[in-house]
């Protein structure tokens, strides 16, 4: 949720003009007023659907709110944060989430780049192929997770049948049962699902590059690998960073893949699954809100790093 709310906030912040000096004409003051007037409905809606729930969650994080207790919650200070901080299961979920994010985003970037480069060349049926690669991305996550869950089944799953047939394994493997294997399974499904998103963003960036650059590189006698690292990559660095940060933010708050595919034991939880368990399974609304706020803080941190990096990139270009 922080992605849509964080990004426009940044743009509006830079777009807001400094307080107009006295010499500014009547007209431009009127324009500023009109701009705010037009923005108002959007701001109100954003405040209601994003701001209010977020503030409420922050408030609950400092109380002993409990679902099975009908009395109004009381303020308990930082107690919930301390409890979550001391919980080894929380740190296990943090490790799981970071590991998942690191590996899956890396694989998605590399694969996405390879596919984008392929789709960027001219060949027959390119349009159809471009549409086709988007299919996994269009399937709702929970549906694809369930589908892969069946394919990963140890006794009748198609993946084991295939691997057995090809001779990669001697005995069927229970992909989703063991916490170590289920992490691999979750990453595989995520890579399958979101590589198209990466491909799409990278392809859009690649199409912006002028042909003359490549002709010049060719004249200079540069090979394709050299061209990629010396010409293509530096030129699409900005859009690639945007794509990566979007994926990182999205991967940090992963919930459905873990929830559907793994056994949900404390060893195979993501941070969002942990927060849900505290809130609804254990009725500890306050504790769950604290965990959710900490997840929010991690995501906000990544967003801040991105904003700083993005600004320096702009300055570099200027």
């Amino acid at each position, binding site marked *: 949720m922080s992605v849509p709310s964080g990004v426009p906030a940044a743009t509006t912040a830079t777009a807001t003009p400094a307080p107009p000096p006295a010499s500014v004409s009547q007209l431009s003051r009127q324009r500023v007023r009109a701009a705010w007037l037009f923005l108002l409905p959007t701001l109100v809606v954003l405040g209601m659907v994003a701001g209010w729930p977020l503030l409420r969650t922050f408030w609950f994080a400092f109380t002993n709110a409990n679902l099975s207790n009908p009395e109004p919650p009381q303020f308990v200070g930082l107690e919930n944060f301390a409890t979550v901080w001391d919980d080894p299961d929380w740190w296990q979920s943090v490790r799981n989430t970071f590991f998942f994010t690191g590996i899956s985003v890396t694989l998605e970037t590399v694969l996405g780049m390879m596919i984008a480069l392929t789709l960027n060349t001219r060949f027959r049926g390119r349009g159809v192929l471009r549409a086709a690669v988007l299919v996994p991305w269009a399937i709702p996550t929970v549906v694809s997770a369930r589908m892969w869950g069946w394919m990963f089944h140890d006794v009748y799953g198609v993946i084991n049948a295939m691997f057995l047939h090809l001779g990669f394994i001697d005995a069927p493997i229970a992909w989703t049962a*063991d916490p170590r294997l289920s992490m691999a399974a979750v990453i595989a499904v995520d890579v399958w699902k979101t590589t198209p998103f990466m491909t799409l963003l990278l392809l859009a960036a690649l199409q912006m590059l002028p042909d003359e650059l490549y002709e010049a590189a060719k004249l200079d006698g540069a090979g394709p690998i050299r061209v990629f690292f010396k010409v293509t990559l530096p030129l699409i660095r900005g859009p690639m960073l945007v794509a990566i940060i979007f994926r990182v933010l999205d991967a940090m708050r992963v919930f459905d893949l873990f929830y559907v595919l793994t*056994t949900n034991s404390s060893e195979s939880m993501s941070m969002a699954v942990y927060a849900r368990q505290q809130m609804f399974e254990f009725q500890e609304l306050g504790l769950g809100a604290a965990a959710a706020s900490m997840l929010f803080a991690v995501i906000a941190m990544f967003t801040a790093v991105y904003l700083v990096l993005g600004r320096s990139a702009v300055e570099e270009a200027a």
Partner: protein
Amino acid sequence: MRNVLKRLAAATIVAVPTFATAETVAISCGTVGQEFEQCKLGAEAWAKKSGHQVKLVSGPTDASEQLTMFQQQLSAGASDIDVYRVDVVWPGLLGAHFIDLKPYVSKDVLEQHFPAIVENNTVGGKLVAMPWFTDAGLLYYRKDLLEKHGQKPPTTWQELATVAKTVQDAERKAGNDKMQGFVFQAKAAETLTCNALEWIDSFRGGTIIGEDGKVTINNPKAVEALKTAASWIGTISPQGVLNYEEEGARGVFQSGNAVFMRNWPYAWALANAPDSPVKGKVAVIALPKGGAEGKSTGTLGGWQLAVSKYSKHPEIAADLVKYLTSPEEQKRRAIVASFNPTIASLYKDAEVLKVNPFYTSLLETFTNAVARPSKVTGAKYSRVSAEFRNAVHAVLSKTAKPEDKLKDLQKKLENLGRGGKW
């Protein structure tokens, strides 16, 4: 024409009052096995009799997920569901949101039900739920395969492991390479709490938390029980049991790919259904003992029906509950789908026994089933259950030693229970 109009007018006058009183009652039905279908049949029969309408709400199969959904509904005071299907461990947790059913159920009807369940469903003097069907873990086995390989049904877990291994290996050698020795439920969900409690109780290792509130889980018998269970994984049980729930295990057993299965009574009717590949080849006995000094046990399960306090027409909803938990309906459900009645006299009913011959021999298991420590831990039960099953799951997937895990668990639960006061 005038005649027609007159008739129409008369029809409207007659019809209006019935329309005004015909209400729609929403009931949440379970979805394990044929539960949904039977719930629907029962509810529709009531609708026909009472002139009201029923709306069926289906939920997730996993009990803890369903609890999550119900809690959100109830804490928001939503009137969308009138009748809730409540697990035996929930009355303490959700009781505040349900009406007292005592005024709707006569005393002698209530006395026909197992007293232990009625007591379980009574919270603060209020009868918050009516017993609907009861459950205990049972051992299913393929009698044809045991006979074929000259094996006897096991009485201890150790024997079960030997028999399962012998039959599994012989069958695999004969070309049936998907054959598994023993399937059970070990997904880190409420169902693993039930399975693991059975192992520990069968070794006489207690019930996690005693009735006095003291945590008892860290004891040598419990360690032995978990060690035994962990030794099955990868030898007689597929690694996949670590992600099986009831239906996952039944899928493997009923397709003919397992020698033994631990499951609830509902699986009996399905295993013997006309389209079942193992029809007529299955037998049911009590779960094995933990060694010669152990005991036969099963975890007490079962479901109740409760009426939401936020229902717009609680009297009508209570009438539906009364109908569904009546002896006639419980008998019907026992005959067509093997749902264990909560009414003792039905265990002597000839028609019920004809379809479920295992009821007589297992009556002792049903009445001596081990209860999960939900009453003593109250609102903290789901947390206790989660800590327990997570520890067991780690032992089963061999990422931790039972000795260390149970020691940690003891400490965690003692912190949670504030020295037994809960």
